[in-house]
C-alpha cells in the first residue's frame, strides 16, 4: 500500500486518491503546433527514479496536488498544492 501525503489531509491510502500521472507543463494551445500538443499529450519521461507527478485527493479534500515519488522504491516527498510553495503543507490535519 502506498501512503500518499496529501498536503491537506495528510498521509492517505493511495486507493483513496486518483493518480493523474506525470506532471508536466501544458503548452499554450493557441500558439503551439499540433506536434507540440501531441508531444504534450502522449510522450512521457517515465523514469525509473524520482518523478514529479499529479494526484487528486478524490475522497478527501478534493484538491489536485503534485508530489515527487521514486518510481522504484515508492518513496514520496514534497507534496505541493498548486499555487503554493514546496513544503507549505499542513501534514497532520486530523
Amino acid at each position, binding site marked *: *500500500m502506498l501512503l500518499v501525503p496529501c498536503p491537506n489531509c495528510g498521509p492517505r491510502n493511495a486507493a483513496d486518491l486518483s493518480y493523474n500521472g*506525470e506532471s508536466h507543463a501544458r503548452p499554450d494551445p493557441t500558439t503551439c503546433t499540433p506536434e507540440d500538443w501531441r508531444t504534450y499529450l502522449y510522450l512521457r519521461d517515465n523514469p525509473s527514479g524520482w518523478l514529479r507527478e499529479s494526484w487528486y485527493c478524490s475522497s478527501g479534500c478534493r484538491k489536485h496536488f503534485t508530489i515527487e515519488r521514486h518510481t*522504484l522504491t515508492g518513496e514520496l516527498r514534497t507534496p505541493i498544492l498548486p499555487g503554493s510553495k514546496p513544503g507549505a503543507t499542513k501534514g497532520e490535519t486530523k
Partner: protein
Amino acid sequence: MLCRANPAGDGAAQFGDGIRNDRLRFAETAEPDQRHPCIAVGCLHVGDVGQLEASNTCGYQRNALTGCDKTHDGGVLGRLDRRVVTHIATAHECPDLGVQRRRTLARESDEGVVPETTETHRSLCGDCVTDGHGNQQSIMAEHIGLHGRTHGDRAGDANVDRSVGQRPSLLVGRHRVEFDTYIGPCRPEAMQERRDELIGGRVDETEPESTPSADTKLLGSPQHALRRHEELTGMGEKRLTVGGQSHSTSCPLEQGETEVGLELADLLAQRRLSDVELRGSSPEMELVGNGDKGTEAAQRCQLIHSIILSVVVDLLLHHYRSMRQTAEMGKHKPPARYSAFGLLWRGLRKQSWPRIWREPEFKSSYDVVIIGGGVHGLATAYYLAANHGITDIAVVDRAYLGSGGSGRNTAIVRSNYLTPEGVAFYDRSLELYNSMSNDLNLNVMFSERGHLTLAHTDSALRTMHWRAEVNKLQGIDSSVIDPTEIKKLTPSLDVSTHTRYPIMGALYHPPGGTIRHDAVVWGYARGADAYGVDLFQQTEVLDILTEGDHGSGKVTGVRTSRGDISTPVVVNCTAGWASTISSMVDVRLPITTHPLQAAVTEPVKTFLPTVVVSGSLHVYVSQTDRGELVFGASVDPVATYNMGGTLEFTEELAGHVLELMPGISKMRLLRQWAGLCDMTPDYSPVMGPTPVDGFYVDVGWGTYGFKAGPVSGEQMAACVANGATPDLIKPFELSRFTEGNLVGEKGAAAVGH
C-alpha cells in the same frame, strides 16, 4: 400385431407426417391402442443408409437408402416395438444384392415373421455378423439400417426406449463419432434363435452366390457410410453415390444418417477384426472380408504392429519435414534436435544433456545488439538468423533470459482484436505459435483450448459483436455466444441472472489458448544460439553510444556492465525499462510503466476447459496443466517500477473471481507476483525505427506482449534486416504519436489478455 403400411394408399399418405426432415416414415398402426408405429421401408440394400424420398410410385419410395433408383415393388413392413425394430425388405433387381434372399425375406415378412422381444433386437445387433457369412452380416446391416433410422428422428417418441444399451462409437480418421444408438448386450442364444428364424438354413440354398470369399466386397455399407460422412461433414453436398449411380437427397441430412454404416463398420472392426479389414482411405474405403478368423493374439499383434509402424512413419515424416524446412532456410546450421530416439539413446547411456545454449565469449563488436532477453528479443534474434542470415548478434539481458514479462505473464494467446491492424498482427502470431513446437523442436505446450471474453452489459455485448464481425472479416474464428452455450463450454461459470454482473454473452474465440511461456523463451534462445547468436545474461546496458546530435544521431555502440560493444544497430526489446533504455539516445516514448499483478491457486482437478476473461470484472482465469488456476487482472493504476504485490489486488481479484465462479470460494491462493507493463495511450505497441539511426524499438507491449512475441520478432527482424518497416507493423511506428495516427485498440486490449 403386424402393421402393414398400405403400399398404394393410406400408409403412403402418412409418410413423413410429423416427422422431421421427411426422413423417417412411420405409419401409425391401425389400432390406436397399440402404440407401436410402423416403419415402412422400401427396398433395403444391405446396410446402406440413406434417405427415403417422399415421392413414390408404389407406396414405397425409390430408396435412396439403397442407392438403387429402380422402382421397387416390395411391400415391406417394419415395426417399432419399444426398443425393437425389425423389418423385412423386398426388392427387385437391386444390383448390389442377391435378389433371391430378399425375396426370401419378403416371404417371411408376409408370413408375419416379426420378432416380438427386445432380445431379438439385441441378438440382431450383436451377433448377426459373427457368423461370418455375408448374408448374415447383411441382415444385421439391414437391421441396423432400420434401427439407425429410428433413433434421432423421433427423440421424444415414447415407443423408443432410449435407456437401454450403450453408446457405441467409432474412430473415423481422427474423429470419434459417437452414436446415439442402443445396442444391448449380445445374447448368443437369442441371436441364434433369431438367425434361425430369419434365415435358418435356407440361405445357402437360396443364395449360393453370396458365400463369402476372400475378396467379397461387403455390400457397400461402410464405404457408403463413410462417403456419406464425407459428404455431410465435408462439402455438405447432398448427393449420394452408390454402385456408380448418383442420387441426390431431397432434404438436409443429419448426423443420424451416417450412423448406420459406421456402426456396422464399428461392429465389424470391433468384433471381427480378423474377418474384415478396411482398405484404402476414406471416402474410398472398402470393407473386405478375408476369410478365416485370426486369433485374438494375432489381432493384438497386428494392432501393436500398426501402432509402431504409424509412430515410426510419423517420426520419419517429422524428421523429413524439419530437414526440408532447414534446407529451405538455406545455408544456416540447423539447431541440434531433440527427438524420442535421442531421449531413449541418452536414457540408455545415462548421458547428460548438453546446456541448452552456450556461454559465449564476449566480443567487442557485433552486427546487431538486442537489448532484452525475453520472447521479443530472442525471437528477433532467432528470425534475424533464420530468415535473414544475420547471425553476428548479441542479446544482452541484465538478469536471466525470460526474467521479465516473458516469465511473468499469464501465457494466454488469442487474436480476436478489435482493429484490422491488431487482428492481422496477432493472427500471424497465433500461426507462428501453432507451428512453434515443430519449428523450434521444443514442446511449448500450446493448448488451443478456446477463449471466452465475457460481456456483462449491453454495451459490452455490442462491442463483442463488433469484434466478432471485425474478426470474421479477417478470417478469424470468433463469434458471440449466449449464456447457455457458455455454460456448456465452461460449466463452472455462474451464468444466472441474479448476480451483480450477470453474464449476458461472450465472444468465443476457439483458437485462443495458453502456452508454457518459459518454453517459448528457451525455444527461441536455443534456436538463436544454434545459429551462432551470442546470449549474454547478467549483462546490463549502461549506455548507448551515438555520434551526431542528441535524439537524431547514429548508433555506434553499447556500453554494458561487461564492456563496450561497437555495433551499428541496437534493438530495444525491453519491457519495463523501455523508456530508460530509449532515454540513453534521447528518444522519448509514449509509455508509462505499470505493474500488472497475477496470482495462482493451489492445484486442483481440471475443471476449467477454457480461458475466461471478463473486462467488466477486470479478471481473467485459466487453468494450467498442473491444475492451478492462474488469475490476472488489469494493471495497477499507479505507474511504478516496483514489482511488489498488494493486498488490494488480492482482495479485488478474489471478489471478482467469485462473482464468476462461486464454486471455488474454498480454494487458496498460493502466490502472487507482478510484471512490468509499458502502457501506451492507444494500447498498441511501438515498433520500428526511431529518429536515431540504427536504434530500433520493439516496446510498449503493455499487457499483450507475450502473445505477440513470435510475430514481432519476425517483423522486427525483417525491419532490421531490410531497413524498411514491414506493412504488418507499419501502423505501430513511433511516429504515429506525433502524426496523430493512433491505433485505438483499447476496447479489445484492455484487460482482455
